[in-house]
């Protein structure tokens, strides 16, 4: 996942601060929570997006 895609998934700019990333992540997870009718796939993508934006994991392979 590229940083650009991660930013798109979370609805942020690529230069967003970690605070904004966490805030956006929480908001988007509410919409896609697997326990609340979302899909596991989208939820894991949202989590991956947060990790990429926070620089935790280097971007992995498959594009969305």
């Amino acid at each position, binding site marked *: 996942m590229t940083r650009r895609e991660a930013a798109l998934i979370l*609805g942020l700019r690529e230069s967003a601060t970690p605070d904004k990333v966490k805030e*956006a992540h929480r908001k988007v997870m509410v*919409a*896609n929570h697997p326990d609340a*009718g979302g*899909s596991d*796939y*989208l939820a894991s993508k949202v989590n991956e997006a947060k990790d990429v934006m926070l620089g935790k994991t280097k971007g992995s392979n498959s594009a969305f």
Partner: protein
Amino acid sequence: MAGRIIANLIVVGSGVLVRAFAQAYRQALQNASKNGVAREAVENMKKVGKTMSESEARQILGVSENASWEEILKKYDSLFENNAKNGSFYLQSKVFRAKECLESAVKKDGE
């Protein structure tokens, strides 16, 4: 006398060769990076152009292989609305594309 000429030739010749090598190496690096990126871009475009694989569409909507169309629509409606309220436009459009892809897939099976 001739020796000097030959020596000159050798020096100039090797200079030309070294410069040519350097340029070729640089060009090869450029090509490699361009090819890498270009190849990925082309592959991605091919994937996107093929209206998203059906299995990915099913995963996005969280729907099983033999789900009914009503089930698909129900998941689509709730996901679309939730992402419109709280999610990102990108996810919303992914959900939409997934439904579109499954729609054509299901219609094809139905006929």
